[in-house]
């Protein structure tokens, strides 16, 4: 009798099918604790490393918002949802924070599919930048690899139109790190897509907080 013929009858003796559920739950909880700790630590080290860059960027963005500038955000997949979240945070913030004009370029499926179908996926954000951009606007793109071609294309069209360009990348910054059109490249130095996305959201939140602070200070002056 071969192993293959009997395995299905005796799932318990297969090494990969242990049934001690408490051991598994303990392992899962330990794993979750470790990953949560790693995420918090990465956020702390990222905000420390980007502290000076965030100050310069917050100053420049606050100045553009005061001139009527709007924030456009973009990204793909999970990064598309994080880009939407940032546009939401700026436009409809919790509590008493001021509302700032912001919109995500991933929100309209009709526009995205029209551009992807007629031109190509690389153009889905850059064509929208061409349509929307005014000189005082800002474009913020998310890409964990730093290599998303459609996000890079949005920076290039944005820079041509005089927009302030902000990129959030992971790993070593990828193509974003070498992109001449990208003025502010914020890199989360890590190699897990999930942990990068978590730290990118924390970074964008910190940027938003500093912009609010600067605008409050301007009001008071």
């Amino acid at each position: 009798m071969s192993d293959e013929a009997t395995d299905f009858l005796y799932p318990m003796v297969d090494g990969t099918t242990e049934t001690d559920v408490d051991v598994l739950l303990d392992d899962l909880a330990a794993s979750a604790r470790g990953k949560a700790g790693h995420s918090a630590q990465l956020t702390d080290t990222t905000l420390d490393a980007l502290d000076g860059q965030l100050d310069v960027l917050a100053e420049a963005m606050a100045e553009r918002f005061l001139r009527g500038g709007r924030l456009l955000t973009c990204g793909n997949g999970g990064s598309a949802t994080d880009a939407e979240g940032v546009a939401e945070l700026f436009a409809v913030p919790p509590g008493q924070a001021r509302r700032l004009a912001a919109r995500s370029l991933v929100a309209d499926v009709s526009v995205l599919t029209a551009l992807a179908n007629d031109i190509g996926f690389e153009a889905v954000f850059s064509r929208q930048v061409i349509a929307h951009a005014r000189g005082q606007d800002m474009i913020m793109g998310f890409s964990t690899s730093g290599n998303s071609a459609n996000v890079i294309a949005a920076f290039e069209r944005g820079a041509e139109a005089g927009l302030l360009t902000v990129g959030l990348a992971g790993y070593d910054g990828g193509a974003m790190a070498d992109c001449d059109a990208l003025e502010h490249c914020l890199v989360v130095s890590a190699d897990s897509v999930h942990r990068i996305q978590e730290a990118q959201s924390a970074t964008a939140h910190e940027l938003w907080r500093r912009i609010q602070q600067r605008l409050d200070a301007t009001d008071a002056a």
Partner: protein
Amino acid sequence: MSTQTASEATSPADLAPDLATASLAMARRFQAGATMWCVSPSWPHHARHVAVEFVHPVIVGKRALPALIAPGREPVAHLRASVEPGDLVVAIAPAADPEVGDLMRRAHAWGVETAWIGAGPRPPAGAANHVLWLGEDDRAPHDGRFILLYHLLWELTHVCFEHRGNLQEPPPVCEGEVCITCSDQGELAEIVSHLDGEARVRTATGMRTVDVTLVDDVAPDDLVLVHAGTAIARVDGEERR
């Protein structure tokens, strides 16, 4: 970060045992053919992030799982039409969200397992099968901590798939004097249609016909408690709490 104060009450790490339990339950449901429905009326991008995570994993080679967002308009009506017994609902919403509260109540009658992610004031006890709640804090939806919670659900669910022996739901065990499985105790039911004191209702264990003469004026979509083939009480949101 220097500004973490109130949030230290419940951090993502504190939820590790709950995340473990929720992930194993999800893996078992997926293994049995579940679809996961993601709902977030307040933060639709979070629902989309959960769905894309499960459908198109960032780690090459992990299996694609059926996850969908619920439409923003009338999510309860859409899910009533589309969910099947054994499905999963994951909501990311404040405790006070009336649509999500309604959805979570009804999910029991639809045979659906629920998880509810949020921060701040908690939903009532038992509002969902898995309540994953962070401390009082209006930053959690925006600073990456909600994202961390659902990333962990995805990561742990896939760990469970590597432990096939644990993917089978264990048979219910009868303990003590009353067996929940076998006794005829009250069961939540949603009215589908009714005529002359009888109603077709949807319950976690399937469709059935029950006597509704003890409850006044039932209408489709009402929730009732059924005992021994009879609807014995209406269930509205406040009573359940």
